[in-house]
């Protein structure tokens, strides 16, 4: 069958010459289609002598398979080449910047409040709030600070205009006013923390007319100064993330606690910087004490039966110490550069499980 060899040679040449998917399809139809050359060849078998049919059929089938395989291989090669060419055409400059998406920032005060609330929640404290515009009664008198008490001189109070009845409201000078509101609202046991804005008429490098405090109050039948120490030591070590943080309690005075204390934590000023932890120096961190019996009585709580402790600390102050923020006044300046630098990522919510320190 000389014809077979000729057809093979011609077809293989055509296959090799096919450059596009269309070319190869044309070759396939011309060879293997209904009227294709190989198909036509098959039809000639019937005209052969019966003893020749088998051998011829086998030869034709081999040709058919060979051509089909060659077409398939060529087709794959053409497709691969076409894809490569398309990919080359589609190249972009991936060093260009992506479409802008800005991430915002959480203010350090909010982040630190979340940290503080996280710690005190672990110790069973609930979050309480109170108004900023307060009565003299809530801010001073009920807290055992009568008019003309020298302790009032430390408070530099902002007042609102005097009313017709001679009274005047004020901006609360501490979150302690919420102690009074809370104790007048509910009988013990009470265990609350109160973060919030406070106001004092003082403005210099280390004082701001508005700042934030967090107040804590525990009132029940058994809590004593040992618990006060336990609670606040636990807090400071968790907040500053220093397990062996040195602490000390110094006797002090607040009109609304008796006994009263200030708590110091250890620090080092070696090398000019400030490091919280073991060191030669002490840093005042908060004021605390056992709730004064008169304050309990002022709130309708029987001081013969109930007792407890209260504490207050400056939120900006602990934020500055923990995160190395140098200047108090910058907290309120809303300078984008500052907020981006000292602020916190929006989804980075401090938790006990995930760690409080960022």
């Amino acid at each position, binding site marked *: 069958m000389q014809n077979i060899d000729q057809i093979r040679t011609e077809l293989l040449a055509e296959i090799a010459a096919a450059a596009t998917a269309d070319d190869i399809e044309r070759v396939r139809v011309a060879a293997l289609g209904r009227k294709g050359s190989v198909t036509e060849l098959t039809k000639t078998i019937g005209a052969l002598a019966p003893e020749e049919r088998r051998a011829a059929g086998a030869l034709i089938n081999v040709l058919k398979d060979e051509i089909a395989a060659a077409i398939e291989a060529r087709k794959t090669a053409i497709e691969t080449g076409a894809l490569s060419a398309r990919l080359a055409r589609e190249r972009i400059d991936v060093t260009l910047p992506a479409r802008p998406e800005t991430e915002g920032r959480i203010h350090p005060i909010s982040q630190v409040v979340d940290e503080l609330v996280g710690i005190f929640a672990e110790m069973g404290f609930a979050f309480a709030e109170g108004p900023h515009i307060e009565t003299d009664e809530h801010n001073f008198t009920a807290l055992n600070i009568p008019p003309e008490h*020298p302790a009032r001189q430390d408070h530099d109070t902002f007042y609102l205009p005097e009313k017709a009845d001679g009274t005047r409201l004020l901006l609360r000078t501490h979150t302690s006013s919420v102690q009074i509101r809370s104790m007048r609202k509910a009988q013990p046991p009470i265990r609350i923390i109160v973060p919030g804005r406070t106001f004092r008429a003082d403005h210099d490098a280390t004082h701001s007319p508005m700042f934030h405090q967090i107040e804590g109050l525990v009132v029940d039948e058994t809590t004593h100064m040992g618990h006060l120490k336990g*609670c606040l030591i*636990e807090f400071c070590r968790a907040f500053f993330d220093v397990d062996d943080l040195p602490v000390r309690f110094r006797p002090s005075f607040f009109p609304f606690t008796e006994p009263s204390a200030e708590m110091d934590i250890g620090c080092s000023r070696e090398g000019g910087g400030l490091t919280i932890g073991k060191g030669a120096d002490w840093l005042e961190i908060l004021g605390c004490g056992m709730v004064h019996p008169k304050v309990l009585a002022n709130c309708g709580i029987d001081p013969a039966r109930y007792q407890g402790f209260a504490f207050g600390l400056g939120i900006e102050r602990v934020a500055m110490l923990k995160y190395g923020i140098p200047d108090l006044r910058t907290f309120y300046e809303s300078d984008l550069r500052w907020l981006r630098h000292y602020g916190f990522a929006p989804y980075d919510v401090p938790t006990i499980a995930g760690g409080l320190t960022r």
Partner: protein
Amino acid sequence: MKLTLSWLEDHLDTTAKADEVAATLTRIGLEVEGVEDRGRALAAFVVGHVVEARQHPNADRLRLCRVDTGAETIQVVCGAPNARTGMKGVFAKPGTRIPGTGMVLQAGIIRGEASNGMLCSERELGLSDEHEGIIELAADAPIGAPFARLAGLDDPVIEVSITPNRSDCASVRGIARDLAAAGLGRLKPLDTTPVPGTFESPLRWRRDLPGNGDACPMVVGRSFRGLRNGPSPAWLQNRLRAVGLRPISALVDVTNYVTLDLGRPLHVFDAAKLVGQPTMRFARPGETIAALDGKTYTLDPAVLVIADDRGARSIAGVMGGESSKTEDATTSVFLEVALFDPICVAATGRKLGIVSDARYRFERGVDPTSAIWGAEVAARMILALCGGEASTLAATGVEPGWTRSQTLRLARIAGLGGIAVEAAEARRILDALGFETTGDAATITAHVPPWRPDIHGEADLVEEVLRIHGFDKIPVVPMHRETIVGKPALTPVQRRTALVRRALAGRGMVEAVTFSFLSARLAAPFGGTDPALRIANPISADLDTMRPSVLPNLVDAARRNAARGFADSALFEVGPQYANDTPEGQTTIAGGVRAGASGSRHWNAPPRPVDAFDAKADAIAALIALGVATDGLQTTTDAPAWYHPGRSGTLRQGPSALAWFGELHPAALAALDVAGPIAAFEVMVDAVPEPKARRGAARPLIRVSAFQPVVRDFAFLVDDAIGAGQIVRAAKGADRKLVADVAVFDIYAGKGVEAGKKSVAIAVTLQPSEATLTDAEIEAIGARIVAAITKATGGALRG
């Protein structure tokens, strides 16, 4: 309160050094603010004798001095005009650090002559700015003696912060008493024995206090005559200087010294200047007095004064008067030792703005027995320093009763303090503090000494015992826990408020915290004109109005950031605003501003000016964080006046306004001196209804349809005034079960649309739940949607 170690040792028999004293004071509640040992830096300076001073051969202004330092005689080149033969000065040898310059002194050759040390000026020693010449010491100053000791500078100065309750510790003696109780030494006895008077005082007190004798319950007077006033002795001057007081004259220095030493303020009048009898009375309306601070004060009838026939001569308990003060030539004085009502003194001091050592002590409470013993102590000192003679006492009024006792149960120390203290130890402490105690193993009765007006209850005694016993000894006890796993600390509303912050920051906004007050200029465009919300005593006019909105501070911050080169800002604050002065008037707002462009220039996403839809998206994101189902919100066009009337809106849930958003009004921007546009929003956090209490945390079962949703587009021609929101609402209302979503995908006005109209194209998603929609069903719902929109808006389907 400052004191020196040697002054303390007048009252305390102790071997403790300054550092140990300071540590003990801090431990017992008398916080030490600093210990200054001025002698330390001056340890190397000694008395030098200038044996010979002659002209430097090569320099007109220099002298060659041969100085005997006690150890050797050496040559020093000195430029001081007062260096001369025979004088004694302060000598420093090479290698000494000079405090005034911080330099280490070197030996050297000056203009060809050796100089092996220095004779020092006060400035070089860091004592003053005096540098005209070198220090000249007294002729009898021992050669080679340490200068610091000679000048009284080797006495460490301890500064103590006294808490307002401890008036007794506003005195060296009170501090010594506390230290003795803390085991640091023994309190020496105080000599208060009477000084016999040799004549009867010609001046007698009058108390003209009808109905208000408590303002000055008692006053003791004493006349002195034949005095020699003048500078007080060096030891007294040194002590006063060390604690920051300027010596004036022996008589004045005595009153200041007794004030600091014993906490007993005194005053002396020049007796020759008084006319008539000294009288305690309230000031006449408008009466004026020139006080010792050089200022003239106008008084009112609430101010207690000491007056004579000429008028007010002293402000009682606060400050003396210029016209009756003692002078160097004074030979006779009248001493005032008074007791005043602390509140009266405090009110006067506050009203007149006078801070004085006398006021500080009187308003905290002075020992009522000191009126008598103060007159004796002062007399002893005046006679010692000024000679002369003292009269007998001229007293009027009655010493107020002060004797009281307070019981202390030892169980209370343990119950409140968390530590058991033995009865003997508790009594030792109280006795050492001046309480006279009796008692047994369970209860102590303590008689409160007259210098402790702060002790009123059992808790006070617990503190006294514990602060001396040591707060550090109290065992640390963990807080009792109700449950092992903690309970939530936040209420649902508080949790949502915290979430709003994170949600807005997640949208690229930066959280700010700004003051609750601002200037009236910033407040006014935002409705802040209520005079009841003005601060009566602002620190500056910029901060005198409680903010009516969180926006003005944020707008102002955007302005400042723009001035720094950051024109595109997105700031928010979750904080208070104040509608009135009641607690209910304070509400929490989540507010924010976006200024400038949507971003910086970008190759692919060109920036556009911020607009109302930025603010609307922010507001809706905040409301979602607050738990509001925002699908059901309506947008109305009635935002407050600080918004652009045509580019702002209110997001409402039913009748309740939950948020405002939009571009700010150009007039408001102009008032705040800021360039627009600024897109702003205010979300009224407190207006969002509290989440409904649910039983359990389970959510309703999910229902997902097995059938393909169908989307159909419609375009309507409506009047320009019709809001797209009306069309969307009508489409949704056409079949609440089937219409799952309505999206506005095109707004068109212009060519092909008649003037005053616009085309609004919406894509309606139909979600069947029972069976796939047939063409007929889709046709029918489409018709209902068209009918509903036509009815609601008067619009027509666009062909």
